[in-house]
């Protein structure tokens, strides 16, 4: 069952994309580890980190494409799931600091000592175990998405109203995590990480490991997402996107489907956040800011909504552009982002990948028609008026 699901996920496009990702996943750390410093093909550690970060963004974009591109749920709060996954990872990393913190408390993280707390809050129990933290990376965003989806989708909240609620959700979390009483480091968030799984988190070798882990998880995420969209469930999602009430009258419980895909997507976004935090070495409430979630939507729009691969392309392209732009013209980045959001949908309504595959399809069909004599079918196709 699982195997046939995974085989269905490996369509040609996905397979090619995964191959490319795996090549990058091998080539970048190898060049970083074995080529001498100054070699033209050596990728410096900070650049590798940069691309590792893009990798985690790409996974977030894939998760967003799954709900937006395939099911029409425009979530403007996916950054919240990303941040929650990040916080779960951050909490594990905080507990790994142990007595090496400024206040040398073996149990309490520094900020709790600073706040004069005497005991570890219940929410932090278990986070010294990597396995528990990883379960939380999936469970916390998943549970929030499930509860949120259960109420929102059952009440048939759709379209712009749903987008606004998701935005409010991430904003509420932003405010909540700012408060010191929440017990997640308040304004400063979680930082000063030392180890991950016993390895020095700042060492080049660990960073290579994190890069590899990110790329592998991105591949896995793409594979699972592709398996979902190629299954009959994926077809139901597209049906919901295109004609929700029709789907309902055929007998599908639309709310169930939306809740399921929203939850899966949130888990995926949580994993992306968990991969992001050990690479940037900090997680703070600003990750919940609505702007982040909107930026993720832009990545998907630029890359091509409803293509999965487009989400990866868009996330990498926009973030690479952002890095370059903020380096060259720091004060103009926000204008560039705004221009992208306006010009992108106007010039490339289907995004980069959508436009390319349209072009290829057109070329293919025009070749086909050119090589075929006018069959009765082709004539009929041409003659029948198409009503949009």
């Amino acid at each position, binding site marked *: *069952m699982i195997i*046939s*699901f995974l085989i269905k996920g490996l369509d040609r496009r996905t397979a090619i994309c995964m191959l490319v990702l795996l090549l990058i996943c091998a080539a970048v750390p190898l060049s970083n580890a074995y080529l001498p410093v100054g070699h033209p093909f050596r990728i410096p550690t900070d650049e590798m980190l940069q691309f590792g970060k893009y990798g985690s963004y790409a996974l977030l974009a894939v998760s967003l494409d799954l709900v937006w591109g395939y099911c029409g749920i425009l979530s403007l709060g996916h950054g919240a799931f990303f941040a929650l996954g990040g916080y779960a990872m951050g909490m594990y990393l905080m507990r790994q600091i142990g007595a090496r913190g400024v206040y040398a408390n073996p149990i309490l993280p520094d900020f709790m000592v600073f706040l004069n707390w005497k005991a570890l809050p219940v929410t932090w129990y278990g986070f010294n175990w990597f396995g528990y933290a990883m379960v939380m990376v999936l469970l916390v965003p998943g549970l929030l998405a499930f509860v949120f989806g259960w109420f929102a989708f059952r009440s048939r909240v759709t379209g712009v109203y749903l987008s606004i609620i998701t935005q409010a959700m991430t904003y509420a979390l932003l405010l909540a995590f700012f408060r010191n009483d929440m017990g997640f480091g308040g304004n400063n968030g979680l930082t000063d990480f030392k180890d991950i799984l016993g390895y020095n988190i700042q060492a080049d070798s660990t960073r290579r490991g994190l890069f590899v882990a990110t790329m592998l998880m991105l591949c896995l995420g793409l594979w699972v997402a592709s398996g*979902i969209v190629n*299954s*009959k*469930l994926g*077809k*139901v999602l*597209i*049906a919901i996107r*295109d*004609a929700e*009430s*029709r*789907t*309902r*009258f*055929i*007998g*599908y*419980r*639309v709310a*169930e*489907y939306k809740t*399921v895909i929203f939850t899966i997507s949130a888990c995926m976004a949580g994993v992306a956040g968990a991969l992001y935090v050990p690479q940037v070495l900090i997680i703070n409430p600003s990750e919940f800011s609505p702007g982040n979630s909107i930026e993720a939507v832009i990545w998907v729009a630029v890359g091509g909504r409803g293509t999965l691969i487009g989400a990866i392309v868009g996330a990498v392209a926009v973030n690479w552009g952002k890095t370059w732009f903020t380096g060259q013209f720091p004060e103009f980045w926000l204008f560039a982002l705004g221009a992208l959001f306006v010009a992108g949908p106007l010039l490339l309504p289907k995004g980069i990948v959508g436009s390319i595959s349209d072009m290829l399809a057109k070329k293919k069909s025009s070749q086909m028609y050119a090589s075929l004599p006018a069959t009765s*079918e082709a004539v009929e*196709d041409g003659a*029948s*008026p*198409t*009503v*949009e």
Partner: protein
Amino acid sequence: MDIAANSILYLDGVAVSFDGYKALRGLSLVIEPGEMRAIIGPNGAGKTTMMDIITGKTRPDEGEVLFEGSTDLTKLDEATIAEMGIGRKFQKPTVFESHTVRDNLVLSLKDNRSPFATLFHSSTEEQDARIDELLTTIKLTHRAYDLARNLSHGQKQWLEIGMLLAQEPKLLLVDEPVAGMTDAETMETAALLREINKTKSVVVVEHDMAFVRELGVKVTVLHEGAVLAEGPIDYVANDPKVIEVYLGR
């Protein structure tokens, strides 16, 4: 109560109002198993509202709606009603535009509708054969792998009828099936509906009098949310009340 027990669809004194506007005021209608019924009426007579109530989209303020004499439809949601065997075709053809014709039918085919079942679904030979059969019925075999959005208006209407059949409903509600069709298509659609009626009960809402005549079934005339007249088309067409509100205009 006997009438209700022997019916496939039983509406009694159904009323509903939207913001004070009474869309239905005491509508009563009985469809017998295996029957085909045509429902006509001017715009605003409550035809679509009636369909909305039967399929669970709208809840009536008062009145009884029973399926197969015992199931109270006013308590159920759209998906449950669809699974129980009431299929609905919309006025405007709504097919899944970005799916192929075949996938449209695959989605509609009677099967387990839970997300888990669809995630791990793979088509059986039996299901494939059933879809081939349906494609033949709706004359779209040659377009099976084209996207539904590229079909002509008439073809979309037929695809939607095919999707209805795929659900294997006991009762079909068909809202203006020939709107926008050519005369030839209209006659073919009438033949198709009569064919369908051999195994299923059908309720057709239609404006097109030639089409209703072609169907040759009992006609119910709705006016201002209630039944105005009922009977064979010629009897109804000569009823002075009907002529006044509808045919005479």
